[in-house]
């Protein structure tokens, strides 16, 4: 676009979503970039902070709601999704974001993910996947790769990691994307797309831990090796193609939208709203009710 065209300035800027709290993450943490990308995405969406609810679990990344001016709920470990769904059902007008780490989402909270997906509540789930438990100082997490050595696993992980992308695609998520703070513009764009998607939307962010993670310069590696899906000719409306690429999780870093269902199914909050409308309608006549139960 030309920036010399008459100004159509956005209603909100990134700074409108920045709270006065200063992040206490380790300097160099990938989550700083994710936070910036979220600010940008929210500014582009244009909803005021008081119309946004930001829910998290426990972990380094789960501090994120406090760093925004939206309503925040730093909840219980692994339980951000049930709480977020409750918030959305109670107040469907709110824009609901959920954030957490890979341990929060795919270990203790792993059982909640499939149900959030099948219910298809309209919310955006951002996982900051650093492949380690950083807050508790470097234990193996569900996405730690086999062989990863940490301060508490001297001989290296014996287990295969969870693949978050395959996990959510297999359970039927209708919007699945991945980003990295190495490409903050691209990350802001996928988060914005996820928020705009009507239904459960999942964004996996490869957000390195610089203190307990394996490599001190992971973001630079991401920058050098990432493969934007738009450049490899991926069709984001093809779930099987998305799953095929998602299999490379942990070996290759694909960024962008893996899958976007072109015909979004109804959301749980939408269906509940319909049901509430029906229930608040004037009661049907006795004859109509009897007719409904007539044996045909």
């Amino acid at each position, binding site marked *: 676009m030309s*920036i010399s065209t008459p*100004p159509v300035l956005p209603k909100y800027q990134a700074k409108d979503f920045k709270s006065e709290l200063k992040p206490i*993450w380790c300097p*160099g943490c990938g989550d700083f970039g994710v936070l910036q990308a979220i600010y940008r995405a929210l500014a*582009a969406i244009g909803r005021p902070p008081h119309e946004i609810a930001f829910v998290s679990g426990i972990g380094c990344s789960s501090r994120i709601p406090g760093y925004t001016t939206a309503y925040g709920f730093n909840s219980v470990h692994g339980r951000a999704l049930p709480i977020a769904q409750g918030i959305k059902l109670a107040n469907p007008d709110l824009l609901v974001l959920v954030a957490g780490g890979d341990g929060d989402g795919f270990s203790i909270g792993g059982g909640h993910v499939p149900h959030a997906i099948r219910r298809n509540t309209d919310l955006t789930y951002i996982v900051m996947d650093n492949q380690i438990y950083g807050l508790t100082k470097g234990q193996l997490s569900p996405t730690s790769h086999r062989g990863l050595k940490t301060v508490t696993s001297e001989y290296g992980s014996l287990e295969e990691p969870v693949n978050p992308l395959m996990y959510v695609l297999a359970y039927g998520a209708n919007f699945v994307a991945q980003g990295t703070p190495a490409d903050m513009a691209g990350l802001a*764009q996928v988060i914005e797309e996820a928020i705009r998607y009507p239904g459960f939307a999942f964004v996996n962010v490869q957000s390195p831990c610089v203190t307990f993670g394996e490599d*001190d*310069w992971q973001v630079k590696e991401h920058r050098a090796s990432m493969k934007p899906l738009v450049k490899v000719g991926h069709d984001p409306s093809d779930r099987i193609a998305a799953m095929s690429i998602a299999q490379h999780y942990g070996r290759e870093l694909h960024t962008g939208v893996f899958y976007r269902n072109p015909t979004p199914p109804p959301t749980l909050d939408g269906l509940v709203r319909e049901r509430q409308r029906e229930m608040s309608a004037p009661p049907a006549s006795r004859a109509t009710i009897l007719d409904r139960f007539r044996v045909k």
Partner: protein
Amino acid sequence: MTRAIDFANITLRDALDLAVIVEEEAKERYGELADQLELHHNEDAARFFRHMVHVESLHEHRLAERRKHLFGDQPSSVTRAMIFDVEAPDYDEVRATMTVRRALEVSLRAEHKAYEFFDRALGEVADPGIRKMFEELRRDEKEHERRVRDEIAKLPPEPVMTADDVIDEPVAH
């Protein structure tokens, strides 16, 4: 959202506004980095980043004055959403235990990024007035790089043992 900037058709007013927000972004980022390092009790590196807040603030102010002189209070068509990390150092560049030398090297890379930004833009800009301004800004960035290199040269060599060898991981949590 971040948008590609059409440098071929940019006006002088927008180019100036763009230059202002580039400096503003750098100023804010240096402030964030200083906050991070102060939190982790790395006063020396934090002090340097705080100094850079002052430097970028002066650059921003100088450009904003020029914009005001030429275009008064005309509304801007440029927003921060159009740029990402032009002169702002990358978040992943800093570490809790970094030395002042490392902090200066971060700044050096940031100045070089800004130089490259204006250099790339000049490949597209046709308007002579804007070319002149971008050439000046590119030259400024080169000069800033030189000054940072001079400061680095004055520093003692890095110790063989780094802070990472002798202290625990960050404990801000």
